[in-house]
């Protein structure tokens, strides 16, 4: 069973389409990153998954339950941390944990103690006196202590400075070792996601652009550098999966989005018969930027 299945999900706010036929699958036990620029529809997707708002059409299931039917029983199995979450700032860390505990029959006090130490949180300090990074850790901790089957993080790195981000990512990674939970994380901060996610979904304008494992994505995309050595390449007929083509006097640089599909017969030899071709691995950030820049430069569909 998949932890999350989204099929043709559409959500409209008045005349604005926030989501259009969005489809995604999150495998159980994976750390899934939902990437997209601001306004792509990430938070709307999560709100529908958490049954905070209903979809206009389509359906989504979370832990096998239709999102519109998610109730307290299901919510007790889902940990939810959001940048927009308003914590009760008048409480201390200890008071918050004491308040949350009775709501969850599966609350693990040992895990709570472990996380408290691991996140280095001051128990008696009021939440209003904690930094934003600390607050996110408190929210994460209160969401993990009941060992949820699914952890949903909505823009958790937003507003955090690099040091705190690193700390927070480390916290999530360490926490993931403590339990076998599925993590669904939405963000536009790709650097942190790269360290965390084993599966990536990319959406833009409410539409799915990509949905595959990080490993496959990183294998598939390569920055190709061609040293022409005086030749004239057949650039007019280049494949559509070659993105961001940049031609200098003696060099052509582009991103190949199907690099991993090639076996023995590479198309580079056909286009650049005697040139020297080198391929460079790309980071998730570079892939993300390439995808969005290419898409915005041309209205022609790009084969990803």
């Amino acid at each position, binding site marked *: 069973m998949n932890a999350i299945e989204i099929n043709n999900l559409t959500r409209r706010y008045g005349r604005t389409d926030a989501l259009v036929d969005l489809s995604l699958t999150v495998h159980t036990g994976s750390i899934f990153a939902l990437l997209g620029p601001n306004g792509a529809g990430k938070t709307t997707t999560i*709100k529908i998954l*958490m049954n*905070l708002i209903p979809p206009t059409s389509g359906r989504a299931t979370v832990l096998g339950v239709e999102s519109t039917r998610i*109730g*307290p*029983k299901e*919510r*007790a199995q889902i940990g*939810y941390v*959001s940048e*927009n*979450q*308003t*914590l*009760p700032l*008048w409480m201390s860390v200890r008071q918050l944990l004491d*308040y*949350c505990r*009775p*709501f*969850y029959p599966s609350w693990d006090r040992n895990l709570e103690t472990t996380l408290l130490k691991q996140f280095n949180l001051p128990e008696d300090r009021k939440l209003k006196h904690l930094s934003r990074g600390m607050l996110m850790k408190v929210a994460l901790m209160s*969401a993990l202590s009941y060992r949820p089957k699914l952890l949903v993080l909505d823009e958790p790195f937003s507003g955090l400075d690099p040091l705190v981000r690193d700390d927070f990512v480390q916290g999530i990674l360490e926490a993931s070792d403590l339990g076998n939970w599925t993590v669904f994380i939405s963000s536009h901060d790709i650097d942190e996601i790269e360290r965390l996610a084993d599966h990536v979904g990319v959406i833009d304008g409410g539409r799915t652009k990509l949905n595959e494992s990080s490993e496959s994505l990183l294998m598939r995309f390569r920055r190709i550098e061609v040293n022409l050595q005086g030749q004239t390449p057949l650039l007019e007929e280049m494949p559509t999966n070659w993105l961001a083509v940049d031609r200098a006097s003696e060099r052509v640089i582009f991103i190949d989005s199907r690099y991993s599909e090639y076996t023995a017969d590479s198309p580079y030899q056909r286009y650049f018969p005697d040139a020297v071709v080198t391929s460079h691995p790309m980071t998730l950030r570079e892939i993300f930027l390439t995808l969005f820049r290419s898409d915005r430069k041309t209205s022609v569909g790009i084969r990803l």
Partner: protein
Amino acid sequence: MTLIWHIVKKDIRRFWIGIALLIGLTGLKLFLVGGVIRAGMGTDWNNRIMLYEFLLLIAELILSFFVAAAIVQEDPVSESGAFWQNLPITRLQLIAAKSSGVILICTLPAVLTLAVGLLVYRMPVNVMGCPLIVVAEVHVATCLLAFAFGSLARNFAQLLYWIIGVALSLFILSVIIAPLLPDRVPVTPGTHLTHTFLLNFICVVACVAVTLNQYLAESRNRSIVFLATGMLLFLYVLGAERSPLSLDFLAVLEPAQNNLNREIALLKANVVQAEITRQKPDLDATELLHISVQGASHGLIISPRSYFGKWMQSGIAQDWAKIYRARDDSLKHAVIQAFGFPSSPEKDDLNFGAESTISVGDADLLRGRSSSYTGQIVLNVQETIIDGQMDLAKGASLRSNYGTSKIRDVRSDGSIIQVDLENQEMLLTAESGWFVGITGVAGSASHIGYVIVNRKTQTVLTPARTSAGIGLYAYGIFVGRGKLQFVVPPSESSSSSLTDWIMVEAKIGDVHSSIKSFKEDVLLKEVPTIKRDAAWTE
């Protein structure tokens, strides 16, 4: 249930300062009330303390409103990022938790009052039942408002915005519709009761609709529509009370009204007359009119419904005349009738005065130089019921529907009998208006009156103007103490003793069954000469 109580405990911990302040205010109010009760009455500082008690009551209501609203806003339903949304609870559980918290806040002062009343002031249990009704009327209304506005607003600033916005809107709309309404036309008690009920009903329904919609349907726009509809209906019902569109449920539901209708039909045929009798010494424009009503059946009291009469010329209202009772004999007549004592027919006339403030020229017309002027007044027809009687002796008591009246002390110097009376279910106030003397006020249109009756001489005495009374009220606890003074006629001052007298409690009118108003034209009789009354005082 455990989770609901868990949330309630959290809210109490969050707002313990407000709750403590609320308890403190209530405690201080009770202390002041107790002080006044114990200190007696009539002193100047008592009145000041009563003012403080009133201010404390207002502060208490405002505080309970904001504490209740804050409890609702602690887990806001309008805010998308609220923490409670992460918790595995339903909206139904949340509304149950919030209701419990708010009810707790609003009943706390009442429970405290009950406890203090029972344990400290040793008030009887039957007396303490009334606070529950008052809590229902005042504090539940406060809670409902707090709940509706608290659930509608996203934060405290928005809460203020909504309250001020709605209050201003109601004010502006009422100002706009005011010119469309008829002039100060008094309404019948039945109409007033019906419209008051409808106004309360609209407020309650609007508040409940907004709250339930916010919690269960999550549609803010719909809540705003509910609120706006409630406000418009409120204004309509408010305005309709003084228009031909007014409603009177009591006239339909209460058969006793039919008897009064018959009485009114008889009275309207022949009873009302008016004549100018006296004029103020220093102002030509002010007249005292003598208006008499004759022909009322036994047990009926006719009295002005409103303080104002309307003087008209050619069907157009020219001026208003202030109506008052110079001396109320209606209670006395009712008791005489009830006891079957003989009385002369002319004494059955029910007299009251009217003071006009029209200009000098118009006053000439009023003096009878023009026959085109008529007055129009609205009268109440009320039934009088004798609640009971008791000996005029220290310690005597009388239990009636209006509580237990107890004579704390009786003194007599032959010419004046002074009775120190106490009632723990109603206020005893000295009214200088229509009903002079000590009157227990249980409602605007019905009264309790006390008279003393000499069974031997068949003399009935009503309280003198020199009587004084004090009324205290805290959460439905009415405590009234009055010092009633009765002036004994010289003919009886030497012959009668206190044992010849009894004290009688009479109920005049009842909002729900035995009061009805009617409008009547007053014909001015021509009076050739009018004497200025040098002794006239206000």
